């Protein structure tokens, strides 16, 4: 039975909500990377897509091993797309569904804040287990870490000012190399992942010159 465009759009809305609302937020590009072959073919092969999904789920090709959240997105997208393949919809309707879903994922991303704001909390090294209570550390005023004129919309690391120095006009606190704890390296990796590209480049450059700083806290900075 033919499905109306309105119904397809409703289904797309549901699928987009599932993909964007889970613990792993699937991006438009990841969804399209999986279904692009199916969508661009004049004679889409549903079995081929099903086989692709199955192989991806089994880890074939190494795509689910990719870091930066990409592997998780692939897994989540494969799971949801596989469910849609089982539904009673024609190939053309499926194409339309995936197309609308991709569009909705894009619109949602553009409409939402650039980055998910995490709850402020003390930074924990990756090696520290979740059950361990984090040490309560003194908060560092945001002005000590904010580059002037820049709005940061994500969690920031605070810097302990045991040996403050000014670097390239930015207020960045540094310590001599010998005080660098192992946690610093993990925290820097976290910072790189969590800050937007321009901020990241600035910070990485600054740190490249300085190499070390002691981190006592990281926190969300409101606009």
């Amino acid at each position: 039975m033919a499905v109306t465009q309105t119904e397809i759009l409703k289904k797309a809305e549901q699928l987009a909500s599932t993909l964007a609302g889970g613990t792993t937020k699937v991006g438009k590009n990841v969804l399209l990377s999986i279904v692009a072959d199916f969508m661009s073919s004049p004679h889409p092969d549903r079995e081929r897509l099903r086989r692709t999904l199955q192989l991806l789920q089994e880890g074939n090709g190494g795509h689910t091993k990719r870091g930066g959240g990409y592997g998780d997105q692939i897994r989540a997208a494969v799971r949801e797309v596989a469910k849609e393949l089982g539904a009673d919809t024609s190939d053309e309707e499926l194409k339309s569904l995936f197309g609308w879903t991709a569009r909705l994922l894009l619109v949602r991303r553009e409409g939402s804040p650039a980055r998910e704001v995490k709850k402020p909390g003390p930074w924990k090294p990756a090696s520290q287990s979740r059950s361990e209570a984090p040490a309560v550390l003194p908060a560092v005023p945001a002005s000590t870490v904010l580059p002037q004129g820049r709005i940061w919309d994500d969690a920031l690391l605070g810097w302990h000012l045991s040996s403050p120095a000014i670097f390239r006009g930015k207020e960045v606190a540094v310590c001599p190399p010998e005080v660098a704890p192992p946690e610093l390296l993990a925290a820097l990796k976290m910072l790189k992942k969590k800050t937007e590209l321009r901020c990241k480049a600035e910070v990485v450059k600054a740190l490249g010159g300085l190499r070390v700083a002691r981190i006592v806290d990281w926190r969300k900075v409101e606009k």
Partner: protein
Amino acid sequence: MARHGLSRPQGPIPRQSPVPHDRWQPGCFSGTLLFSLATPPGQFVSPGTGRLVLTENDSGEVVAQQAARAAGHPVIPGSGIKGAVRTVFELLSFSCDPFLAADRCTRASCCEACSLFGLLGWSGRVSLGDAVPARPGSVQVQVRKVPIPWQPDGSKTGGDFRVYDLEEARMLDPERKVWMKRPKELAREVFTGELETRMTFWNATPEELGRLFLSMGLGPEETRFLLRLGGVKYDGQGGVQVTPRVLRLTSPRRATLEAEECEERCARWVRMARESAWGSRFWPRLEELANALQATD
């Protein structure tokens, strides 16, 4: 080391009104250069599409990252080739940073790279078409395993430009404290063989053409390098050997130069670039770039 950071010499960005591409200028050259792009032994080129496709190789079905196609045939998009050449040209000139909004070139005032390659709203004087197989069957499509890409640490390689050499990607084994080759786990379609494409240029001076050819790795021995195209550069791949085949000039005089004549003309323009003021300033940087790009294990 696989990744190198390079910078150009310090200096102001000279800007001037760009040379037009739509009116013939006296003393300048317009025409097309047909050239081939061949992957040397051990190299492949893999222009990605962002798609995952079901393919087959010796071990059966495999889901791989798809490489670019046009009408089903393997291609290297011309935009990618132009970008690769422009990057080298920018490194070898006092050019602007196109991504720096505060100090951008405009249609009325362009740096050397923007004048030649164009900018938003200005088409420039060089255009490159998609590279297609030179002959039927001259390009083989394979599925290879490549290392999973990782986020590079920008602080480890300074400089304004980052280039990769021909060395395979390595990682530090934290237990044994030794550097080892990164495991190759990611399936990706790759091309090997010979492709060809065409570069069209308008109102270019001999020096500009010489610099353009040098940016494609067509210089004398000490500055020769494989032009890097497509993905997997981090694993020392993507290198192609550029070879000029046919030069068709439409201005200042119509001429068609093939084989040795074509090579001789290209070499002459390269010599003129080297003997210019640009050459005295940037030749050492070109040698440094060639050394970095051609470094192997």
